[in-house]
């Protein structure tokens, strides 16, 4: 009787290995695009948003150069070590032609050297830290960068909120958060001309849930505004706990807050927070955007986030490169990607510059009545 479960598990293991051995051979001619995203862990929802957009694009445009495009989705588990493993799976075992992802600059940076070594081009969907593409000839991106995003946030705090003293809360284990906070601080200090205008800086770890100690420290300094770039659920809890502690200063955040979960967890407490992000779903900016909004709403019966739009754009940019290269060879896809000019994406026009980054405008949104509402657009200079 006791051997039964053992036998059953051995059988499952054998049948699983059979499946994985047979499946790739059947689609030998398909063009494979690796989707390198966190589907579990702290960033799971963000990764899922991007995958939604990528899948939608794949459904609408399933072929290029007469070959079927197959998505190979791997979970990097919101963990830098797991991300390196997932990247190796894509390059070594699956031998993909190109890679999309990942949500989270840290995760992209963990995969970067592996893609470069395997000479497979990767297109980051929403990773905004400059280090993702710097010095890595194989990494591209379809979103703006944090130095620009930091400037947008600081300018808004200084001009629109008339803030002269700000506090910063960083997710210390997240390169994105630390980097964006630095760019914000640099710009804000430049605007006020006073290095002491940043009155407090507090840190937390990914996955933390209690921020009362940090917030109590910040409260002493009575800042005019608080900039807290970081993961969406932690950030929602931060704003919630800040309001419970009687902190009334407005909160500013970055693109990572642009998530349904942020609104759900934050509830009434996040009303009025202002974020900089890539895309607003209440104002279509071009034809691709209109088509994307319609297809997304039909497919998923909900409102798309910026990450789904960027995932959709990332997929189309790779397809466009394959078409122009007239080849699915990774080396040729890379060459074609560098030539991307004025590609009309659903989240705005994409031109890949010499640093393999996209020059794009930022959108400011605020939370009103439990929803993100478009505030304004800020173009890069």
């Amino acid at each position, binding site marked *: 009787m006791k051997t039964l479960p053992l036998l059953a598990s051995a059988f499952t293991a054998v049948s699983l290995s059979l499946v994985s051995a047979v499946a790739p051979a059947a689609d030998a001619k398909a063009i494979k695009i690796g989707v390198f995203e966190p*589907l*579990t*862990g*702290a960033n*799971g*929802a963000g990764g*899922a948003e991007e995958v939604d957009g990528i899948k939608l694009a794949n459904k609408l445009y399933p072929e290029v150069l007469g070959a079927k495009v197959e998505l190979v989705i791997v979970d990097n588990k919101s963990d830098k070590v797991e991300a390196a493993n997932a990247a190796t799976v894509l390059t070594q075992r699956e031998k993909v032609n190109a890679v999309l992802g990942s949500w989270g600059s840290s995760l992209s940076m963990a995969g970067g050297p592996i893609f470069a070594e395997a000479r497979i081009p990767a297109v980051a969907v929403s990773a905004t830290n400059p280090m993702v593409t710097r010095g890595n000839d194989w990494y591209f991106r379809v979103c703006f960068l944090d130095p620009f995003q930091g*400037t*947008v946030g600081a*300018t*808004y705090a*200084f*001009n*629109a909120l008339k803030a*002269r003293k700000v506090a910063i809360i960083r997710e*210390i*284990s997240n390169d994105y958060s630390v980097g964006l906070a630095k760019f914000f601080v640099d710009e804000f200090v430049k*605007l006020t*001309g006073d290095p002491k205008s940043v009155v407090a*800086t*507090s*840190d*937390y*770890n990914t*996955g933390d*849930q*209690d921020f*009362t*100690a*940090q917030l*109590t*420290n910040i*409260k*002493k300094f009575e800042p005019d505004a608080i900039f807290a770039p970081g993961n969406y*659920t932690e950030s*929602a*809890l931060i704003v*919630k706990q800040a309001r*419970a*502690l*009687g902190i009334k200063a407005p909160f500013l955040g970055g693109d990572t807050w642009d998530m349904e*979960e942020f609104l*759900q*967890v934050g*509830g009434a407490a996040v009303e009025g927070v202002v974020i900089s992000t890539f895309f607003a779903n209440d104002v279509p900016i071009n034809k691709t955007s209109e088509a994307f909004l319609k297809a997304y709403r039909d497919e998923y019966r909900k409102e798309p986030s910026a990450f789904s739009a960027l995932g959709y754009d990332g997929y189309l940019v790779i397809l466009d490169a394959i078409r122009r290269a007239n080849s699915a060879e990774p080396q040729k896809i890379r060459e074609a990607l560098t030539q991307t000019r004025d590609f009309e994406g659903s989240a705005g026009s994409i031109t890949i510059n010499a640093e393999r980054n996209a020059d794009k*405008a930022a959108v*400011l949104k605020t939370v009103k009545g439990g929803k993100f509402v*478009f*505030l*304004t*657009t*800020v*173009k890069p*200079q």
Partner: protein
Amino acid sequence: MTEAGNLAGLREAAPSQAELDRRDTEKSQKIDVSVFSVSGSISMDLQTFLQQFVNALSLGSLYALIAIGYTMVYGILRLINFAHGDIFMIGGYLAFYGVGIFAMPWWLSACLAIALTTVFGVGLERAAYRPLRDSPRISIMISAIGASFLIENLAIVLFDARPKAFPVPGLFAANHVVGGIHVASVSLIIPLVTAVLLAILLWIVHRTRTGMAMRAVSTDIEAARLMAVDVDRIVSVTFAIGSALAAIGGILFALKYPRLEPLMGIMPGMKCFIAAVVGGIGSIGGAVLGGLLLGLIELMTIAFLPELTGYKDAFAFILLIAVLLFKPTGLLGRNQGEKV
């Protein structure tokens, strides 16, 4: 204001003279205030300290509640139930589904969640631990680790990995301000619940026949069995109490931090295990002391050494190592000697 580039244009504008004057006056006013309000600043600091203390007390009582479950199971079976943190997570999710899907009132949903989690905990003992009770201790420990992974991954499949927002009833969300200290209702309720449950638990253990049997089993399983104690029943009761406490902890945790995810039990589980060891594993009072101490150390690290915030979890582990090195039985633990 929807015109593109408006903000970028504004950025170029240097602060006007009036603006600069305003800033100067502000500065000088600030100086005046700081000169004349020395006593004010001291009371302000005391207030900050009290606020931090209240924050820590609330977090610590939550840890204490979960640590009791670890300590009880260890006391009876000498087993560290690694799945305890996952039982805690199950409690939170069940309460969420009761309110979210079946639209029950929160108190009914909470009671049902506690009951179902208790059944789950007892079932886990039957399935994963009882068959191994006579095996070497390492086997049952490995089984516990396996059970923990199984529950976590099942939860990812069943509940979805995307975090869910826990609906907090108004009663718990309300905010109170006492002498400038802000406390959410739930932060007051947690220490109260912990205290009441601790009292009930101590009463069960020291004043009832079942409690007497529990103490007997804890001292020596075989001798207790010879004295006609139904060991299986006592172990089940222990798991039932431990799981019910974990479920209550999970629900309170979700009320305080309204975010549910399948892996939410890992870190609190780890920390409460540390709390149980620090307090003296096997001792209920020790678990409470350890939990409070851990909450205090965690928040005071952030409060007084803000630059070390990134290492706050490391402090919990350093505390564990220090206690194991210098007082392996924990603060309130007795030396029981290794049983053969």
